[in-house]
């Protein structure tokens, strides 16, 4: 019956019988290897002659786990042909075989929840679509909270999920008992019930996806390893396998645990920063009152465990505090062979399990499974085209949510390969957020040891990674550190958050993990005040800095094509501009300085280092006269913010720095102290008066010391990024990566003045913007000032909070900060009218201005005033300038 639909050329009829027999008999056979029985043989077995490999294909996918088959499935669905999937062992013989089989939407960021939600729906219909039994059961899941902070984070998750239209209920402990018979609720304060969550058998899902993909013509070859990927002039041209070469245009690295090594083995090394950790879970024999298969999955994050029903007993694993990293040396074994069980290591999780479900005490052990999982440096998966090589895509590093993500991630990657970009903003998952600098094995080993426990740890606003730190630092790092700097990390670079004054209780400050008012509140307040009234220095060296030079006007031509603003400005001018994609969305938001007629200095956000480079390179003609250089490491950037900044600088350079002599958005090379050739720019990225100094690093300490000693009499002090953030948000400055993404156009965030439609060059995205200008925008970036919100007592907003207008959900916040000037919280976010029918409604100023807005923080709604422009009163004490709206953006989180 099922045989008739098989169209795969790679499968011989004889094997098909074997396949079907396997499929029928091994649904839930008990097996010593794990919960899911043995792996099914799909194409080749030792005793049969392998099907010869094709000599060419359009796309080669490496990895026959759930991720690889999902990519194959979705590509085939999107109409791709000549897809070849290669698996070194057997399908699903890696992590997929041992995966615990939970599909949950309880993920830290919305794009991940979205992927899980899609996967869930896909797996549910897969059995019907393919006829393969997948053991899919919609059990729902319960996230338990043992303390108020956890409960708050679950409530925040709930409001985020409601925005996505995913059902969820915040429930009382008593209701937990009704849903799950074994849970001990005595130490619970509440729970989140996600009725849509499900369980399935991962190898069966994997198999079903493979079957469906094969029907759509995907050729699947098992026992075929990719030795390396062939490239020519930065393009994939083929792969070299142990069974011969295959020519191809696209290559997808879905090799899971082995993705890092596979990336390293190609001619041009591809960085896939992930690292394996052992992951343990327990299988028991049936409970004396066998657990119903519909029993919800329990996630007790405070106990670091998850529990699901398994054959009348339970399956329970966890994310321990002291994970065991493996394969650091890169042992390239074929399959994950019997890893050692380690009961002593599992002891804390067993304790947590018996505490949560005491009646399991008498339940007999079936097996302790050790299943290696791969983790990434920031707990998010790696997706997309690699920066160096066109046609080389990656999807790996699932952080032990492989089953939840595979469906959605496969879909997004297939869209990416088909349309050039997925239908949703996947920047948080984009592999280009990492570069070579995250590829050190030692770094990865240390970082994943932090990441794995973090999966279940309480994540409060503004948490930072503690491992793999102090990799990139400014030359002033030690100076600032001794002055009390507290650090955060961005793209490997240490940046000061704020400066703890001498005598403050440091211990208390380091423990400032709260959803409420943080204890640095007054410290940052003082720094902001100093920025407003005197002058502050912020070390902003982490910014990405490129220099683009040419002999003729090639540099200008390139930038005119890439940037929406007009760059044909007099030498010395600074232009804030977006680099847009064809849809008119921001790929980058940067400041470009025209250093000379044919050389430009491009300043971009820190985490744009890889992405922006590859974006420019993509459109850069291969012209030996045109040269792009990454000079990030060559310059230390000091931001002098405040009304007295010009006094400090003029004293150090004997040049008048008043706006008459040094108008805003200008750049001059001048001397500061003894150091010559400092690029001084009249902008501060905050809307406050002041200057950015770009200093060749060997002068950094000298200039800093001079500035600090001369600044003494003007009340100079150090400030950190939190002060900067507060300043820029109260001025309604959006920044790329948080507020702006590749789906946001300048028109939607009120930056039409930075788009020069008539500059004479058909810049990227012009068409889309013209059309949008014609049709009107359907979403708008707004500033929401919270009212009736007590900063002392109420929960603080972070980002991702739903925005309601007249009780109707209209959007989500993207960033927020406390404005010390307004003495209110300010949230930035996008709103769009609820769609009536098919066509999205065009947004009008009336829509913004007339309406009662509310921001939902962990289920509690606070009234807010929506604004399209920052408060003019804020600028009252400032001198009016030619371009008052110096809007820039990208100081990172």
């Amino acid at each position, binding site marked *: 019956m099922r045989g008739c639909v098989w169209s795969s050329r790679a499968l011989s009829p004889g094997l098909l019988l074997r396949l079907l027999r396997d499929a029928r008999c091994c649904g839930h056979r008990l097996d010593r290897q794990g919960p899911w029985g043995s792996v099914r043989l799909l194409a080749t077995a030792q005793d049969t002659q392998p099907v010869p490999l094709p000599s060419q294909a359009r796309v080669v996918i490496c990895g026959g786990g759930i991720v690889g088959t999902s990519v194959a499935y979705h590509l085939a669905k999107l109409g791709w042909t000549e897809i070849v999937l290669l698996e070194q062992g057997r399908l699903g013989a890696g992590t997929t075989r041992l995966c615990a089989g939970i599909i949950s939407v309880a993920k830290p960021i919305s794009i991940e929840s979205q992927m899980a939600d899609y996967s869930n729906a896909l797996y549910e219909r897969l059995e019907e679509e393919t006829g393969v039994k997948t053991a899919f059961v919609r059990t729902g899941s319960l996230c338990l909270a043992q303390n108020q902070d956890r409960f708050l984070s679950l409530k925040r998750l709930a409001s985020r999920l409601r925005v996505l239209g995913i059902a969820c209920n915040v429930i009382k402990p008593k209701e937990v008992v009704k849903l799950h018979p074994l849970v001990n609720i005595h130490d619970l304060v509440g729970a989140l019930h996600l009725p849509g969550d499900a369980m399935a058998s991962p190898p069966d899902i994997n198999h079903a996806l493979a079957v469906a993909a094969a029907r759509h013509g995907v050729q699947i070859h098992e026992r075929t390893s990719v030795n390396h990927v062939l490239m020519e002039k930065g393009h994939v041209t083929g792969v070299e396998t142990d069974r011969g070469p295959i020519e191809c245009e696209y290559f997808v690295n879905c090799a899971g645990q082995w993705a890092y090594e596979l990336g390293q083995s190609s001619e041009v090394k591809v960085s896939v920063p992930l690292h394996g950790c052992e992951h343990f879970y327990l299988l028991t024999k049936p409970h004396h009152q066998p657990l119903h298969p519909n029993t919800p999955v329990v996630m007790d994050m405070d106990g670091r465990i998850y529990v699901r029903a398994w054959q009348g007993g339970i399956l329970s694993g966890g994310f321990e505090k002291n994970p065991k990293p493996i394969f650091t040396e890169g042992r390239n074994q074929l399959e994950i062979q019997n890893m050692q069980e380690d009961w002593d290591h599992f*002891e804390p999780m067993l304790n947590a399990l018996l505490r949560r479900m005491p009646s399991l005490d008498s339940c007999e052990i079936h097996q302790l499974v050790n299943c290696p999982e791969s983790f990434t440096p920031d707990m998010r998966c790696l997706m997309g085209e690699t920066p160096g090589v066109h046609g080389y895509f990656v999807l790996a590093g699932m952080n032990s949510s492989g089953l939840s993500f595979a469906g959605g991630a496969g879909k997004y990657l297939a869209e990416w390969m088909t349309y050039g970009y997925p239908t949703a903003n996947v920047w948080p998952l984009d592999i280009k957020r990492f570069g070579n600098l995250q590829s050190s094995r030692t770094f990865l080993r240390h970082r994943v040891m932090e990441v794995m426990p973090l999966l279940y740890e309480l994540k409060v606003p503004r948490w930072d990674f503690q491992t793999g730190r102090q990799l990139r630092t400014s030359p002033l790092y030690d100076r600032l550190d001794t002055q009390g700097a507290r650090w955060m990390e961005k793209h490997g670079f240490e940046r000061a958050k704020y400066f703890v004054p001498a005598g403050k209780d440091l211990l208390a400050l380091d423990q400032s993990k709260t959803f409420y008012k943080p204890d640095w509140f007054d410290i940052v307040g003082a720094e902001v005040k100093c920025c407003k009234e005197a002058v502050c220095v912020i070390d902003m060296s982490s910014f990405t800095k490129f220099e683009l030079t040419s002999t003729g006007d090639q540099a200008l031509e390139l930038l005119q094509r890439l940037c929406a603003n007009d760059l044909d400005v007099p030498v010395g001018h600074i232009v804030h501009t977006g680099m847009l994609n064809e849809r008119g969305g921001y790929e980058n938001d940067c400041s470009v300085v025209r250093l000379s007629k044919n050389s430009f200095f491009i300043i971009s956000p820190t985490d744009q280092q890889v992405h922006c480079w590859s974006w420019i390179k993509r459109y850069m003609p291969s012209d030996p006269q045109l040269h792009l250089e990454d000079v990030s490491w060559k310059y230390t950037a000091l931001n002098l913010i405040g009304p007295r900044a010009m006094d400090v600088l003029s004293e150090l350079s004997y040049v008048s720095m008043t706006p008459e002599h040094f108008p805003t958005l200008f750049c001059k090379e001048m001397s500061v102290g003894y150091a010559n050739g400092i690029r001084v720019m009249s902008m501060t990225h905050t809307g406050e008066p002041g200057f950015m100094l770009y200093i060749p690093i060997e002068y950094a300490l000298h200039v800093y010391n001079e500035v600090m000693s001369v600044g003494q009499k003007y009340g100079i002090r150090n400030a950190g990024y939190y002060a900067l953030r507060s300043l820029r948000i109260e001025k309604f400055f959006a920044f790329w990566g948080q507020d702006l993404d590749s789906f946001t156009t300048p028109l939607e965030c009120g930056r039409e003045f930075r788009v020069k439609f008539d500059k004479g060059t058909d810049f990227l995205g012009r068409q889309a913007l013209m059309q949008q200008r014609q049709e009107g925008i359907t979403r708008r970036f707004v500033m929401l000032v919270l009212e009736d919100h007590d900063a002392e007592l109420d929960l603080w907003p972070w980002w991702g909070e739903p925005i309601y207008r007249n009780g109707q959900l209209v959007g989500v916040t993207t960033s927020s900060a406390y404005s010390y000037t307004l003495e209110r919280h300010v949230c930035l976010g996008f709103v769009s009218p609820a769609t009536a029918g098919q066509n999205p409604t065009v947004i009008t100023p009336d829509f913004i201005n007339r309406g009662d807005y509310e921001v939902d923080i962990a289920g509690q709604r606070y009234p807010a005033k929506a604004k399209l422009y920052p408060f003019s009163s804020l600028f009252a004490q400032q001198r009016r300038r030619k371009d008052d709206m110096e809007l820039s953006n990208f100081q990172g989180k």
Partner: protein
Amino acid sequence: MAAASQLFQVIRGMELARIWPRARFLCQTCCQFSHPCDANSGPKQHTWRGYRTSQAWHTYYLTPPQVNSILKANEYSFKVPEFDGKNLSSVMGFDSNQLPANAPIEDRRSAATCLQTRGMLFGVFDGHAGCACAQALSERLFYYTAVAMLQHETLAELESAVEAGRPVQPVLQWHKHPNDYFSREASRLYFSSLRTYWQELLDLSTPGEGPDTAEALLSAFKRLDSDISLEAQVGDPNSFLHYWVLRVAFSGATACMAHVDGAELHVANTGDCRAVLGIQEPDGSFSALTLSNDHNAQNEEEVRRVRAEHPPSEARTVVKQERLLGLLMPFRAFGDVKFKWSIDLQRRVLESGPDQLHNNEHAKFVPPNFHTPPYLTAEPEVRRHRLRPQDRFLVLASDGLWETLHRQEVVRIVGEHLTGVHQQQPVSVGGYRVTLGQMQGLLQERKARISSTFEDQNAATHLIRHAVGSNEFGAVDHERLSKMLSLPEELARMYRDDITVIIVQFNPHVIGAQ
């Protein structure tokens, strides 16, 4: 084999789980015996209900760091240095430690490497009636032994160097804890006695011949005891020194000493300290082999010997209440001239002695039924053992340890510590029926064992921690440990004796190659 031990593990776990609730209760009662009020009735016969807890008791609670600082105050470790990455010595190193019960402690320990011959020396000395004799042994016995083992030529060289006033080649390299002191005042006296000894040895030996180790040990023990006795009889013009030599002679000490040279191990024992060898069985577990006989009333051989040395009329009095003459626990000891000299000699020496001694009741007291001295000897029993690769370590300890822990338990604790508990056999369910609860019990027990091990770098410290703090189940109970260590000085001796431990770790690769 592996399956069997896995089963053992699991069964242990089951037992533990079963007795767990009871264990708590027992722990509480067992801590109560150290109540100061019933101290006189002895530790085992407590009558708890009749007394209220005294206020003072509760103030003695120690935190884990305090416990550690007490336990670790005297710990010492020595690793034999490696040459070219290879350790050529059969001894890898040793750990030693002492825990006082008397104030001041009456136990002593010594460890040294012989420089003129090969091998290392280790000794524990358990003093009684003061620490003077044990202190003298710790300083002198190794020199006597080392000299006794010297070749004729080396002795001649030594003598001629001293004669000519040339610098003398060092004989011993000591491995001492800072608290292990040498008495400076007596060193000249000790040296001259030692020189007399080697001069005699020089006369007796013939060129080209090395003495037998066992004989050398025997000779050194007897010679030192007779020197102690002689020095006390002769006295010294310096009154302090005179007083000192008398104190040494009138106090006593037992000694257990080991000499390791390659695969040759000699143990010489006088008294009730003990040397136990830890042997690793093929399945990884440890068994004990005792290399010394205790010289006390529990040793029938010894009782027979003592009785045979005295007329039958004294048969009932020479060993009374399991003590020599009803007084002394060990049947062999250094010093203790009260059991060796005639009454006449004792009186004479005491009368000519310095004034301090006149008020010393202990010195004046004459044992009852004292008819045919000497009753006591320092002559050791010497046992030779050829080390095998499975012989992993040697535990030398004073009776304070052996009274509290069975030798099998001692060897297990040390063995598991030295092999590292991370190499503890991994738990495996195998095909057995184990419940989650049983597994949890087993894992918690293992964890407790690991954490107590990680606290101690030093195996001797680890052993003492167990000796003092073990509850009925062989697990260290912090509360008990804390109470035992916080006993007031005057009470401590009621509950425990001084404990001194030296653990010598052997190098199976070197031993196997020999």
